[in-house]
């Protein structure tokens, strides 16, 4: 039976409070959701790329992880966990280990879309039995909100600032989920902590318990970087999904499936308005920028619908 909220509530927490992530941080919501998909009887080794999550969850001598955890560097969570998984396979074969372990790597969009994409791509291509989870908060938050290739177009970041002549980031975001789907690995999904969490729970469960490599791209709000009030976390997620900025879908053995279709597709403005990083777009002279964004979002949404046979 697919994991639901009620079942998840009964499972032990594998990521404890006492970490130093910001109040209202989406990253730990994402992590908790993914880890709930682990069967309580299974052990896990978790890896993380350098980033907010890592430095806040494992600040010597405290670890927030109840499973074995390894941090290596910024750009190599994929390779690091593939090494752990290779060790597990051989030690199991040699009879030195009895327990069943699952392997999960977490990275932000910096460690995943950008500096870590080679290591991730290599790990997925080699077919390690692992899940790579990107908690995508659309900028390098750990170093102070610099643009990444996941940053939405026109977002104001500290290296794509909205100025008098340049209105924020000049490029649309990279579609990493599709890049990963092109690896033809058994399971790729785009998800978010959303509603009753069934989408993320089920995708995490599939990702973890599908043999071979799997990739999850999880929309993960950052109140500090996006500049919204912390209590609004779940509203922001819902707006990202209902505006089709962040569609929920999965690619299972090459089969594309939309897992959520908004009843009413909202205009992108609704997603932009609550966030300070888009404030400059709401000046009257910048109306065309919002239109530009809307056009691209529509185009990508249509393409996705087509791929998913909708």
């Amino acid at each position, binding site marked *: 039976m697919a994991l639901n*909220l*009620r079942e*998840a*509530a*009964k499972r032990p*927490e594998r*990521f*404890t*409070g*006492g*970490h*130093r*992530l*910001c*109040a*209202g*941080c*989406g*990253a*730990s*919501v994402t992590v*908790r*959701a993914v880890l*709930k998909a682990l069967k309580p009887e299974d052990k896990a080794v978790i890896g993380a790329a350098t980033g907010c999550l890592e430095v806040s*969850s*494992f600040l*010597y*001598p*405290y*670890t*927030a*992880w*109840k*499973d*074995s*955890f390894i941090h290596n560097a910024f750009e190599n969570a994929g390779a690091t966990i593939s090494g752990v998984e290779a060790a597990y396979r051989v030690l199991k074969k040699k009879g030195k280990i009895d327990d069943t372990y699952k392997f999960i790597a977490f990275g932000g969009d910096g460690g995943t879309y950008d500096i870590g994409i080679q290591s991730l791509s290599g790990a997925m291509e080699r077919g390690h039995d692992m899940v790579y989870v990107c908690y995508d908060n659309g900028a390098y938050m750990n170093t102070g909100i610099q643009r990444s290739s996941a940053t939405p177009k026109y977002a104001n970041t500290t290296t794509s600032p909205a100025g008098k002549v340049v209105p924020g980031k000049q490029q649309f975001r990279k579609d990493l989920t599709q890049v990963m789907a092109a690896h033809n690995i058994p399971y790729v999904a785009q998800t978010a*902590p959303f509603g*009753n*969490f069934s989408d993320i729970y089920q995708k995490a469960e599939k990702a973890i318990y599908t043999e071979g490599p799997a990739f999850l791209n999880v929309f993960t709000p950052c*109140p500090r970087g996006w500049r919204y*009030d*912390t*209590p*609004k*976390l*779940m*509203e922001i997620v819902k707006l990202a999904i209902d505006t089709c900025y962040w569609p929920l879908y999965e690619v299972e053995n090459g089969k594309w499936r939309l897992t959520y279709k908004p009843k009413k597709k909202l205009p992108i403005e609704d997603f932009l308005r609550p966030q300070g990083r888009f404030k400059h777009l709401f000046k009257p002279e910048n109306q065309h920028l919002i239109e530009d964004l809307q056009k691209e979002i529509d185009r990508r949404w249509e393409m996705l619908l087509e791929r998913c046979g909708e």
Partner: protein
Amino acid sequence: MKDNKKVTITTETTWKEITPGGIVYEAGNAHNYKTGEWRSMRPIWHSEKCKQCLLCFPVCPDSSILVEDGKVVGIDYDHCKGCGVCVNVCPFNVFDFVKEE
């Protein structure tokens, strides 16, 4: 079962006693670190109003909605940072959100 290693590290710990390579032997020991003092706003959960829909527990970034036997039983103020996500997500307005004294 062999003895588990538990090494208490403080700012008095010398290089001879510190764990090699920064290894930490006590998984989840961040629990001992109290982030509750970061809070400027305090969520207050009212058990009598709670319908046990459970929507609040997964959204807490600090694992601070206490759940026992699948039911919400309270808030872990040792770790709750007062972000208010639980307050906002509750469809039944079970929480109050008040300034810390």
